[in-house]
């Protein structure tokens, strides 16, 4: 009797729970048409779940804005970049021309582009977007990326409705690629002037009001529902890009039609095992990322799951984030080059790759990702790195260097100097949490008393230089090595305690000179190769870091409902759903 | 025909170690309208007998033999359901602890309704009011909760429930032991009237021979599970056959007999303890009205000579408060307490502690369960620097012998001793410390009747042989009369009368004292309770 009672009570209680929860659901939901699951693409989005904390913010320049995934379906950029093919894709723009001295650039815009409210897209919008950022960067500084724009842009001016001239503060042959082109998680989307100019405080402007048609963009999707747990976008069949003739002879003909999914649903990033199971169960179509062991399990569980390299290793493509153990040049513990080198020879990158990547990655010898655009530079510099012993596991040499530097092993087998054990800390990026214990253990086995420092404020520890070593990736060059070299440029140096994004705190005059020279030359200039090679030689000589491995983005997608994903044979875009180029992948999908 | 017949009843507890008999060879019979007193000390088997009749024995307790017949029906071996139906409907029970017998979260009307309904009887407001009226309670009582009733009212409610279904037999298990004498008398009257009206038989269980003499037709005396004596009340009281019965009757102190007063008060001796306008209010109230005083401006003098001062009053009269103040455990809200002419606050605590000791009502809780009982005696010896080691042990053993205790008891724990032994130990402790003043707060109220006289005699001994003054606090006028050199009667914090017990109790001038005196049940069926109540 009791049990029966209990069960009914439970059911009653739970339905009460359900009603409460359902009642709390979105005020922002609009009446929605039912769309078949077969026409729906479900994407795991980047911001960590289980909820979007900021789902009602579609302002690309708001600092606290996480769901940029949705901005990418609503707003579009002047240019995109396809990293896999090193291809520049004109989008809202059709082309650009630098002045001879690279102090200005003129961009021509595409004809026939319209905002979702029907108003034409024009040079006014582009000028407005960039001038707003520049002025903010010179003044209030509270918009995302505004300081970066203000650092280089003197003024954006409209020449005519379809032509914009960007006057620069200095010679910059990479202005278009860096600022007008969207790739990975960088670049600037164009926003409508007639909406944003009405906002009194752009930093606090949410650009979100479904009733009023906000957010308003040029992109092919409009948001129909935004809730903490879901964002739903429906295809706009009046998208400008679907009109015949508008793309001219531009390659990538897949633009000239409406994207196939009638509806996109994004869910906040979940716990990996949970999302993997959802993917295997066809509940979602596209996952942010899966590490190798999980990928193997996924491929085994569901025949419809595939990756860029299909069902074979490395199950993905190289990302801009090769992993390294970075030395903090301001730390007295690693100030001696022999110590750095000894540490380097104590690390066995092969073993790390075998365990962490289950063998599905390559060791790296440079701070550069092996991109198509960077491959030549790697070919140039890798032999010289190897010659200097970079990335070589050699316990004997490690010990010899330590002895040479005046160290002795203490009773417990750890290196000590004048009786004092040489204790060091290694701090890791969250994505490398599982790699850190392996490295720490390798170092300890060679007598280095290294402790893994994983504090809740690890980012501040890293960027303010309060650790001896950092296990991290590289957010460097994409289309050429300049951005990578800038990671070591001393003009960004800040003393320990102050935040700087260049946390190597490396200072080398010659290296600075070479980097500055690179910055003056346009990409693909043949003069670049020897300069870059010399700079990377200094990097290897000074043992700036211990390169570990190329970082792979392993993105599983489910072909049960959607096919046409990028493949090695047709790498039309990086298939990463957390990148701002996601929309271009959606353009390529077909219904299964 | 008899309502109840018990033949050779044998009740025992079947334990792993063997069977422990609680009642043996008990035979009794009871006719309609008859009242039987079942007398005995704790452990004598009287309550076990009642439980057996009602089928309430709990495992491992069991009826091992004999018969219990109610109106000719044999009850032994009935199942739970049959017994449940029989209870209240045919055998009603008036509990001992009426204070806690009523479910605290139910209104009186609910308690009555439950009793009626569960026996298939209708229950409505009229019926309830009628029942309450039969026990002398107003209809408004029905809406009240137990905690809103006085002890006497609660007991009456229990009587109302007991008679609600017109039972053949009422078992009243010490129904008034928690009540003061005045209320006891009223409740017993109500119970008897109700029983008379129903014409049912009644068993009154108790140990108070006075009460028995006043209330029952026949008396059965039990001891260690055996029936010692049984007979009409007059015969038993006037010519007890068993020596045990005689001892029980004798142990009831009676005013006017056997007084053990000391010497006359010395004139103009120095004061030992003096209360000057002492007043006590409990609790503080930030807002609201100030709480009523537990003690009104009290003046009290204890001369510096061995005397026993009896303080008498009902519960709530403030007598225990006087004891606590005298012990220095409680500071008065107003007035002064002088110890040998010095304000108490100015007396060195160590000296004062040595000179004033106490014996409390509940001797069990005054022993720390963690230690052997010797601890309670050795600590003050050490603390007051009187003796240590072997000397202390010798002293403790000596005082044990002085109160008639085997010194080997010192090495036991409190729960291994009887109530009387524990209380004697406390007296031994007082004796050993030779204080000037002993505060004895109800020292015999939780002790079996036979032990009572012995302990009271010990108090007298303290005075006479060791020169210790005693503040004897009690609700029992008879014992106060017996040992007191002076008496003080308290009513709700006021002293209504004080002086020589002979005068005060033989010729009370205050009607409250008279009321108390009249309410005492005399252990003599021929001296009936006066009808004054």
């Amino acid at each position: 009797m009791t049990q029966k009672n209990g069960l009914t009570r439970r059911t009653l209680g739970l339905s009460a729970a359900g009603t409460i929860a359902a009642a709390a659901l979105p005020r922002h939901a609009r009446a929605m048409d039912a769309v078949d699951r077969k026409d729906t693409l479900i994407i795991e989005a980047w911001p960590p779940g289980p909820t979007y904390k900021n789902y009602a913010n579609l302002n690309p320049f708001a600092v606290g804005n996480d769901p940029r995934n949705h901005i990418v379906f609503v707003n579009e950029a002047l240019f995109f970049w396809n990293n896999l093919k090193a291809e520049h894709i004109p989008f809202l723009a059709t082309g650009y021309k630098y002045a001879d001295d690279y102090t200005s650039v003129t961009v021509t815009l595409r004809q026939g582009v319209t905002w979702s409210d029907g108003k034409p897209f024009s040079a006014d919008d582009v000028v407005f977007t960039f001038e707003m950022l520049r002025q903010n960067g010179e003044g209030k500084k509270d918009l995302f990326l505004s300081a970066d724009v203000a650092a280089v842009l003197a003024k954006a001016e409209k020449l005519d409705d379809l032509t914009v001239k960007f006057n620069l503060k200095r010679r910059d042959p990479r202005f278009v690629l860096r600022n007008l082109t969207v790739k990975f998680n960088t670049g600037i989307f164009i926003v409508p002037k007639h909406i944003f100019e009405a906002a009194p405080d752009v930093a606090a402007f949410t650009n979100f009001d479904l009733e009023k048609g906000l957010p308003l963009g040029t992109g092919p999707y409009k948001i129909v529902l935004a809730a903490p747990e879901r964002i739903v976008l429906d295809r706009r069949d009046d998208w400008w890009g679907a009109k015949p003739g508008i793309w001219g002879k531009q390659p990538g003909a897949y633009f000239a039609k409406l994207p196939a999914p009638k509806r996109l649903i994004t869910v906040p990033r979940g716990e990996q095992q949970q999302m993997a199971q959802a993917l295997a169960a066809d509940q979602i179509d596209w996952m942010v990322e899966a590490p190798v062991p999980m990928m193997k399990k996924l491929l085994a569980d569901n025949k419809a799951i595939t990756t860029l390299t299909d069902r074979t290793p490395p199950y993905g493509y190289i990302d801009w984030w090769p992993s390294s153990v970075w030395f903090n040049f301001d730390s007295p513990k690693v100030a001696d080059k022999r110590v750095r080198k000894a540490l380097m020879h104590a690390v066995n990158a092969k073993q790390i790759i075998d365990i962490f990547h289950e063998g599905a990655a390559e060791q790296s010898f440079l701070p550069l990702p092996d991109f198509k655009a960077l491959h030549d530079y790697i070919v140039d510099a890798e032999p010289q790195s190897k010659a200097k012993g970079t990335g070589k596991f050699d316990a004997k040499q490690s010990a010899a260097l330590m002895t040479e530097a005046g160290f002795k092993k203490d009773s417990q087998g750890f290196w000590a100097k004048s009786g004092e054990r040489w204790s060091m800390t290694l701090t890791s990026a969250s994505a490398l949490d599982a790699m850190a214990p392996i490295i720490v253990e390798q170092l300890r086995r060679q007598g280095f008393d290294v402790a893994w420092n994983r504090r809740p404020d690890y980012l501040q520890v890293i960027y303010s230089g309060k650790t001896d070593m950092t296990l991290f990736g590289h957010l460097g060059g994409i289309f050429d090595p300049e951005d990578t070299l800038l990671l070591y440029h001393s003009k960004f140096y800040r003393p320990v305690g102050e935040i700087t994004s260049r946390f190597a705190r490396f200072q080398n005059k010659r290296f600075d000179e070479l980097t500055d020279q690179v910055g003056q030359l346009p990409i693909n200039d043949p003069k670049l190769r020897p300069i870059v090679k010399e700079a990377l030689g200094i990097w290897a000589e000074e043992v700036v870091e211990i390169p570990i491995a190329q970082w792979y983005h392993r993105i599983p997608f489910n072909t049960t409902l959607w096919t046409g994903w990028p493949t090695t044979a047709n790498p039309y875009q990086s298939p990463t759903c957390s990148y701002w180029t996601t929309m271009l992948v959606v353009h390529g999908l077909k219904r299964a | 025909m008899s309502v109840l017949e018990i033949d050779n009843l044998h009740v025992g507890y079947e334990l792993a170690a063997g069977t422990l008999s609680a009642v043996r060879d008990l035979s009794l019979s009871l006719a309609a309208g008859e009242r039987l007193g079942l007398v005995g000390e704790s452990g004598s088997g009287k309550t076990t007998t009642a439980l057996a009749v009602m089928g309430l024995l709990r495992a491992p307790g069991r009826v091992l033999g004999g018969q219990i017949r109610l109106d000719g029906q044999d009850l032994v071996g009935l199942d739970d359901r049959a017994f449940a139906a029989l209870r209240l409907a045919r055998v009603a029970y008036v509990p001992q602890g009426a204070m806690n017998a009523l479910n605290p979260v139910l209104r009186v009307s609910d308690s009555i309704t439950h009793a009626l309904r569960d026996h298939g009887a209708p229950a409505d407001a009229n019926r309830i009011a009628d029942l309450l009226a039969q026990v002398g309670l107003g209809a408004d009582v029905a809406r009240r909760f137990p905690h809103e009733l006085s002890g006497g009212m609660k007991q009456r409610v229990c009587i109302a429930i007991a008679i609600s279904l017109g039972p053949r037999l009422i078992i009243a298990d010490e129904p008034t032991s928690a009540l003061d004498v005045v209320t006891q008398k009223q409740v017993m009257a109500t119970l008897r009237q109700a029983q008379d009206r129903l014409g049912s038989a009644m068993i009154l269980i108790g140990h108070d021979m006075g009460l028995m003499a006043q209330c029952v037709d026949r008396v059965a005396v039990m001891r260690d599970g055996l029936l010692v004596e049984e007979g009409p009340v007059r015969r038993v009281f006037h010519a007890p056959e068993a020596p045990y019965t005689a001892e029980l009757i004798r142990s009831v102190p009676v005013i006017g007999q056997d007084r053990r007063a000391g010497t006359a008060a010395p004139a103009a001796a120095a004061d030992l303890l003096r209360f000057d306008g002492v007043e006590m209010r409990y609790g503080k109230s930030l807002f609201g009205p100030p709480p009523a005083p537990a003690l009104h401006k009290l003046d009290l003098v204890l001369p510096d000579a061995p005397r026993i001062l009896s303080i008498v009053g009902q519960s709530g009269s403030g007598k225990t408060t006087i004891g606590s103040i005298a012990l220095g455990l409680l500071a008065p809200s107003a007035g002064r307490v002088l110890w040998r002419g010095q304000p108490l606050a100015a007396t060195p605590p160590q000296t004062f502690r040595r000179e004033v000791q106490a014996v409390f009502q509940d001797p069990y809780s005054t022993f720390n369960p963690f230690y052997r009982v010797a601890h309670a005696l050795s600590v003050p010896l050490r603390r007051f620097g009187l003796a240590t080691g072997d000397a202390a042990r010798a002293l403790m053993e000596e005082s044990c012998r002085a109160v008639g205790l085997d010194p080997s008891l010192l090495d036991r724990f409190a729960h291994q001793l009887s109530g009387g032994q524990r209380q004697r130990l406390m007296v031994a402790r007082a004796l050993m410390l030779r204080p000037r003043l002993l505060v004895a707060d109800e020292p015999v109220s939780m002790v079996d009747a036979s032990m009572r006289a012995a302990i009271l005699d010990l108090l007298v001994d303290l005075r006479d042989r060791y020169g210790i003054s005693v503040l004897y606090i009690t609700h029992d006028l008879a014992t106060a009369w017996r040992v007191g050199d002076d008496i003080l009667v308290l009513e709700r914090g006021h002293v209504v009368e004080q002086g020589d017990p002979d005068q005060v109790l033989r010729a009370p001038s205050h009607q409250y004292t008279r009321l108390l005196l009249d309410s005492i049940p005399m252990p003599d069926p021929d001296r009936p309770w006066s009808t004054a109540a």
Partner: protein
Amino acid sequence: MFLLRLTKRLLLMLAVIFTAASLNFLLPKLAPKDPIETKLLELTETGGALTDMKGLVEAYRAKFGLDRPLAEQYLSYIKDTASLDLGQSIAFYPARVTDLVGRALPWTIGLLLTSTLIAFALGTVLGALLAWEGAPRLLGLLAPGVMVLAALPYYLLGLVLIYVFAFSWRLLPLGGGFEMTAIPGLRWDFVLDILRHSLLPAASIVLASVGTWALAMRGMMVTVQGEDYMAYAEANGLSVQRRFFSYGLRNALLPQVTGLALHIGYIAAGSVLVERVFQYPGLGNLLFAAIQQNDYFVIYGVVFILVVMIAVLMLLVDMLYPLLDPRVRR
């Protein structure tokens, strides 16, 4: 008299809330983690190096008043909190804390409140039966199981349930509030979906706490059974049901109810881990995310709500207890 007691009790409650809120202000400030730097560094970690972080940091510090002296920040915090203005999130600027909390609260209350009440009801009856002498023998077999469950923390049980029901047997979803493909709305299928998702987390809470309630109840019931009124009820031949429910259960329940109110107050704070394990979109998850980013204002907001909830519940128990127990009515 009642009003007086209420006033006094209210004053005490306000004092507790005020002190707790002040403590709440200081705690996150103790951490070396700067929420603005953290936020920007997170952007840097994924989005490439920001050239001039300093300017952004300062702009936002001024925006949130974090550049002012601590005492001044404290005063305005107290003032805002007193007027129930919980401010804006730092990490999700310009989202309002009230909105964030308001969105999370129903999930937490829906899941935790109902499962706690179910556990309470089941546990109380079970505990009472375990102590009841006339209860079926079979129940005794449950006792060890109940004891094991009582000893286990929610999250451990949650992990076991996930492994068995979600991974091995794939009967129930792994976590989340509702299906990935589901479109929220007030429809039956959606409500059912929410129920399906709440089954495992609810079960882990119910199972893990049912034992605790049962054992507490068992103890009280044993005590109550020793009371005179129980013996008296039996001596009056009252029915078993009557004695069990109106006499035993009813009286043993009193301290349980006090426990329940306190427990409800703690569930939100105490079940962060359950919400984490099940990726449940409630207050616990919000609080944990805020703590990770040291998002002062969200922490302040969530903790303040929790503190008020607990304090009010304690007050309610104090004030309502007399209704349950007539003895303390004055």
